[in-house]
């Protein structure tokens, strides 16, 4: 069945406007930040091939070797070594694996659960809305870092617990935004029209409203990925993430913080990686929001 959608009227109105993808490819923010994240993904997948050394191989003779270019640096150790003589560059490269896994899985699940509840609250209103909104309020009254540490303490350390903790905490971000968006969309003429034609409620929700909420959702999801990477690093820093024989940026940061006066590079290298990743996700999210949001676009 053919139904009204904003896109069609625009297409009929005159010369072909650029498609969403074309707009995205013209945005230097999106291309730059997106390119960096693709680079990180490749790095994570190809870590065993790319990393110059075994990230776990200890060499106490070559402990706290400074990065190349500094006095007493060793050839082959571009970013130096940590307190146990492990290659910092290789550990940063392998660290992308945990960070990106958390970014995609945790943020994806938080998005799924949060937006489902948000759609329901915004569309159904009444009792369901009151219940979900109160739940969000309760959740927001916890300091997120404390709650995540608490949850991981409850669930036990490990990648699954970290992901679960992030999902349990951050679904509210999606829920709040999607609820507001859905309430706005539900008032629009096209939804009223769909109702009048006699569309079933799930059809209206998922075929009419969801596609119009999607742009905001995609931008929010990208931003959440950056947040998830930081939360994982914080949990690793506190010693509650994956076991210490898996290299993570947060774990390296925690070790680097301890020996910062002797070997600043052990802290600086993973911190720089974390910084670049967070900024990239954020810029990508910003660019996506600008390019995909029909209101901001004008």
């Amino acid at each position: 069945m053919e139904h009204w959608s904003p896109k069609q009227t625009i297409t009929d109105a005159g010369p072909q406007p650029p498609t969403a993808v074309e707009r995205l490819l013209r945005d230097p923010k999106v291309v730059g930040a997106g390119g960096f994240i693709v680079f990180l993904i490749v790095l994570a997948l190809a870590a065993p091939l790319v990393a110059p050394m075994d990230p776990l191989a200890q060499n106490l003779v070559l402990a706290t070797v400074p990065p190349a270019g500094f006095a007493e640096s060793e050839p082959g150790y571009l970013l130096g070594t940590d307190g146990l003589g492990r290659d910092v560059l290789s550990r940063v490269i392998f660290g992308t694996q945990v960070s990106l896994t958390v970014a995609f899985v945790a943020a994806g699940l938080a998005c799924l659960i949060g937006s489902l509840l948000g759609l329901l609250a915004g569309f159904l209103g009444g009792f369901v809305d009151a219940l979900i909104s109160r739940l969000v309020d309760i959740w927001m009254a916890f300091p997120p870092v404390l709650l995540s540490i608490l949850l991981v303490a409850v669930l036990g350390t490990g990648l699954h617990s970290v992901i679960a903790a992030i999902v349990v905490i951050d679904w509210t971000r999606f829920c709040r935004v999607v609820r507001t968006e859905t309430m706005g969309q539900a008032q629009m003429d096209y939804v009223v029209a769909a109702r009048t034609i006699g569309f079933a409620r799930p059809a209206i929700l998922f075929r009419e409203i969801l596609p119009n909420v999607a742009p905001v959702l995609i931008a929010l999801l990208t931003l959440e990925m950056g947040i998830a990477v930081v939360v994982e690093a914080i949990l690793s820093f506190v010693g509650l993430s994956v076991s210490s024989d898996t290299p993570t940026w947060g774990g390296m940061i925690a070790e680097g913080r301890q020996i910062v006066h002797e070997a600043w590079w052990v802290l600086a290298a993973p911190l720089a990686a974390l910084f670049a990743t967070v900024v990239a996700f954020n810029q990508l999210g910003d660019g996506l929001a600008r390019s995909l949001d029909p209101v901001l676009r004008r």
Partner: protein
Amino acid sequence: MLLAVVVNRMAMALVTLAGVAVVIFVLLRVVPGDPVAMMISPGASAADIVALKAHYGLDAPLPTQFWIWISGVVHGDFGTSITLHVYVTDVLASRLPATIELAIMALIVAVVLGGGVAVAGTLMRRTAGETVIDGLNSIMLAVPDFIWALALVLLFAVAIPVLPLTGRIDPALAEGFATRFYLTESVLTGRFADAGNILSHMAMPALALALPLAAVIVRLLKQSLKEAMVQDYVLLARIKGFRELHLVLQEALRNAVGPTLALTGVQFTFLIGGTVIVERIFSYPGIGNLAIDAVINRDFPLIQGLVLLFGLIFILVNMGVDLAVAALNPRLRHA
């Protein structure tokens, strides 16, 4: 009308706080780690363990435990910390002032820094200066306090070692204080050398907490200021011959500051939440650092007390912001 809003908000706040209490209580009771196992000596007999559990009330059924705890809380008794062996209220009272002083200092830094850059950006609008500010700020907006704190460690503790890396005050100076509000007390009693020492300890954590909020303030306030600068009343003042700085500070700021105040209030709760990890990084003796220790040690009564305290602070700040916004904006008073 405002009174009705207040009463309504307070009722909602109580429901939220009760929800927080239930969630944290249930959450802790499904923890696999046993607090008694962590505090007892390895040679203890099974009977000792049972006795200890009974001592802390951990052998009672869950609803009973909850009832005992919550009726205590209502009377101001949060129980005894399992690891520190003192009343939870006493621990909280001794640690809270450090966090309050840090959070308020960070808020002040954020407002001054963010406000200053927003005004500077408005004065430089449509110049290269504004582009630089916007570009830097869009990166600053992405960087959380955790990263700032560690970057500051690298900068001010290693590259330019001018600031102390840990603590709140030199231990030798901490003796002569009557209250736990060290900074406030030292300023009020004219002990400026002590105040300087405290400030040097506070500088890095406060800055780390302030920078993300400052970035948010810059973005919103600069936007509002630029919108205000093209209004008729600013044009009129301009025709009267006032200088550009006067126009921004005296004419535009007054009208543009509303939305920024509201957002700053909301963001202040994020800043308070950020104290947990930032205090940890700088070994700053506030409630945030305490909270991480409490969780790692599975100190149930202390965790419960801390979470309720954080929840209460969040709710109070939010309520205060809502009321301030409602009081300032007549159109929102009935919302």
